[in-house]
């Protein structure tokens, strides 16, 4: 399975890359980590007239803390492997730190990028789920509009369909720094380690005193986009973080699965319920210990 032919260019700056995107009159693809695009090309399920390799754009590298200390900024070329060992992520974005264990395999993590994963928006991927849970900010750049920011909760439209226009590059993701009293949990069910998720849960629980101030629960792998449960947030608000609540919320999460999205809804609901409950129980236990 050899990739079909394409034209290739390797811009050195974001502006150059955006310029190429803007002027291209044909099928253009951005090559970042390549861990999703290149297999698709090798399988001849994807092709491009022009491949824009952004791997040499220095400005896209690096994980930094914003000046106001509220965001961790992850550039377009930051590899999963870097995120996994980043002290900034570990300290300020514990949800993402926990999720990294489930992302692919070492060789793939050495090339694949967070932004690439977010731009692709595979429904079973970990990064989009975390972005939804934390309402991360996706930073897009184009020649036409310069830089614009889209909150994650306005970014994922449908299956592989995001707010990113064809002439835009996702140049950065900004993860909000966790605050005092924030507890996170992440788990996914997959057939084998590193496989795509059959069902996954990302949780961020913000305590207010001894009760839940706000709870973000995102389920993924059960529909075309990661799903933030508003109903679960409503139920949880102001409640003490008990095991019983965890059970109730898990049932709610499971009930939100649309039968049209899955092959067997009974099975998927049972699995989602189990995973959600286990994560929530663990998170709530941590919350309870804190008090």
């Amino acid at each position: 399975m050899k990739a079909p032919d394409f034209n290739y260019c390797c811009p050195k700056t974001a502006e150059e890359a955006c310029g190429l995107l803007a002027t291209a009159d044909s099928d253009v693809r951005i090559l970042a980590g390549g861990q999703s695009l290149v297999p698709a090309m090798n399988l001849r399920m994807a092709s491009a007239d022009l491949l824009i390799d952004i791997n040499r754009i220095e400005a896209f590298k690096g994980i930094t803390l914003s000046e106001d200390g509220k965001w961790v900024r992850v550039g377009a070329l930051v590899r999963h492997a870097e995120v996994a060992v980043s002290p900034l992520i570990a300290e300020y974005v514990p949800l993402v730190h926990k999720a990294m264990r489930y992302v692919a395999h070492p060789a793939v993590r050495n090339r694949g990028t967070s932004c690439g994963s977010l731009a692709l928006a595979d429904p079973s991927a970990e990064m989009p789920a975390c972005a939804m849970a934390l309402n991360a900010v996706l930073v897009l750049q184009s020649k036409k509009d310069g830089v614009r920011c889209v909150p994650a909760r306005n970014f994922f439209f449908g299956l592989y369909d995001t707010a990113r226009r064809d002439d835009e590059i996702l140049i950065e993701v900004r993860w909000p720094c966790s605050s005092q009293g924030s507890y996170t949990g992440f788990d996914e069910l997959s057939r084998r380690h590193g496989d795509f998720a059959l069902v996954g849960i990302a949780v961020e629980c913000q305590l207010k005193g001894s009760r839940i101030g706000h709870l973000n629960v995102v389920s993924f792998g059960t529909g075309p986009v990661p799903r933030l449960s508003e109903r679960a947030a409503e139920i949880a608000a102001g409640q003490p973080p008990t095991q019983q609540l965890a059970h109730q919320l898990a049932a709610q999460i499971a009930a939100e699965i649309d039968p049209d999205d899955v092959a067997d809804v009974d099975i998927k609901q049972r699995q989602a319920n189990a995973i959600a409950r286990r994560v929530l129980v663990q998170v709530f236990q941590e919350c309870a210990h804190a008090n």
Partner: protein
Amino acid sequence: MSDELKLPVRVQLRPQTLVGRSVPRETARRLASGRGRYLDDVHGGEVYHIAFYRSPYARAKFTLGDLSAAASSPGVYRIVTGTDLTAICAPWVTRLEMLPDHVSPPEYALAVDEVYWQGEPVVAVVAKTRAQAEDALDAIDIDWNDLEPVANAEQALSLDSPLVHPALKSNLALEREIIRGDVDAAFKGAACVVEHHFSFGRQTGVPLEGRGVIARYDRRTEELTVYQSHQAPFQMQEIYAKQLSMPLSKVRVLCPDVGGAFGIKLHAYADEMAAVAIARLLAVPVKYQADRLESFVSDAHARDAVVSARLALDSQGCIVGLQYEGLFSFGAVSLYPRGSVGEALQLLETCGLAYKVPALHGQVRGAFVNKVPTGAYRAVGQPLGAAVMEQLLDNAADKLDMDRFEIRRKNYVVDADLVNDSDAKLRGLSLRQCLDTIKTDMNYPQLRQRQEELRAKRTYRGIGLCTFIEQTGVGAWLYGRNGVAAASKESVRLHLSTSGEVVCHTSASESGQGVHTGLAQIIADTLGCPMDAIYVRTGDTLSDPVGGGSWASRGLALGGEAARLAALDLRHNVLSVVAAWKSVSIDELEIDHGVVSIIDGEVACSLQQVARLVHYDSTVLPLPQPPSLSVERSYTPFSKPYFMANGIQAAEVEVDIETGQVKVLDFWVVEDCGTVVNPLLVDEQIRGGVVQGIGAALFEHCVYDEAGQITNASLADYLVPMAAEMPDIQVSHISTPEQETGLGAKGVGEAGTVGAIGAIWSAVNDALRPLGVSAHKQPFTPDVILSAVLQKA
């Protein structure tokens, strides 16, 4: 005095046998350094690459349009069609003389007018690079008229089913039964009857290196040379000579390092045949290797059967009757040359074979369907037979409230019962010893106790057991007698060279099993030379002694005995020379570490000196006709069709009844393969086989839709077992040497797979038992488990 004339120093070490020692493989050093020479590494100079246009439909008619666009695609040398090839390569038909009713449709190298499975090669593009060949595929103009496919065996055998192939009179490919005693009476009178039904998913072998050939026809010498990643070079030599109407001696097949085979590379495939025929037709060197995508729709498929079975016992738990019937889905043709029947026949033959079964009725049917042809894949049918019987025994133990070890132990065959000649192959098994050993190895009472404790906390662990008996060292009865031109034997030719090297040419090939290291150990011990003086060569029909290759767990069992016999011959010949030279009798001489000496006396000479004498200066000897220093021996079992090995396997699993995940916590094997030539290599063969069995039971499945098209033809979706899900596997041995050979080794290559599938079935159903549900469909995916738990229809 020059070095070569100086008397060698006697090595003053106590003789140590190499057979039985865990000697590492020297080949492994080369392979671990990236110096393997697999098919695509063979530097053939300029070669053309072939890509195939394959049928997207399970059943269709087609018309080729204008191929000039494809032909003029950059880098393309030629487009070749089925019609082009029939001029020099006729279609072939699998025929088995012992099964005259098994009638296969013919198979073409490239399809002509019609196709019968998704993936069947239709057009070949020959180009400078593989990438360019693939580019041209898009330009091939072909009109399809897709027809209704026969998607499964039930449909195939229904009254109004279309025929899988117009050459067939019926889709029924095979129907066989074994009857012994009165099974109806046995069941009627039985105190206890249990049953189970089984669905074994279609799967394939997934060797990491794809199948492939590099073929070159030299117009000057009219010789065809084929490098092939294969298990049976002589078989392929015969087939190419026959198909291309060439003298056998003008066809040479070479097998380089093979990156995994497992039976998948045992067959003759249309795409490889097409590539070789193209080389002959165009007289240009060509290379073809199946990529991963192609492999899923062309490599032999396997298993794919539904079995229902019942066991009848008396109130003491003694078996009174066994009844089983299996329905197998083969493919669109019977794979050449050995046929697609092995999986079904071996289920038929081996189910219950380890047990005393006074009344038995076994029946198998196989149907042609419009899918990839099925063929031999590791253990061929035996895992199914073992899984069926062991599951029934578990069900019986539960119903009778009997211990699962006890019910097996009391029903195992004993030699005293094996009175008929046909039972001879079952004598000398160590079933009870293996059972007792595994019970200790796994600390069964402790596992049981932990299981009970965890059940109380709604955590469901299962302990599985699977006794197995296994056909190894399979010899003449399956091949020559069936009219299949595959050797019944393995052969060794030993040659003592003037450098003192002992060169061993053997037909016993390998793909990492370590057969060659084993042969070297045997030769070293028998002849009396150091192991590093031995060079084992294989994989070349020009220089190997005729033999089989690598399959049916026989490389070392048969090849090893041939090596032992040849080494004895060579030893005798060497000593004859030295005896004549030194005027002593042969009985006074010994060979150790390459040095010939008088026993308890002086050193006579080195093996190298013997060789130089015989080859360069033989008239020194008082022997007008010195014995040859090149000897050849073969071996095949004579009094029975194969060597029967036996063992038992056990698994501990945990079933998560909320997610449906099955985790294998631990695994044990007790294996009796007779003499263990090299424990290090044997144990790893067992482990590899076990993991293929676990993979089958939990992960692997070729998933087809109703249109006969595969839906998961990639490693992303066809789940092979990876490291994180596999357990450590504890292996121990009982050793009951094979009586028919001096070596005493039985085969072991497939053993791990024979028992592992059943061990997982047994374990999963043991885990689910307290819930009153059971699993019937392999692979045990979360969906299968949860469907059982949720009691879905």
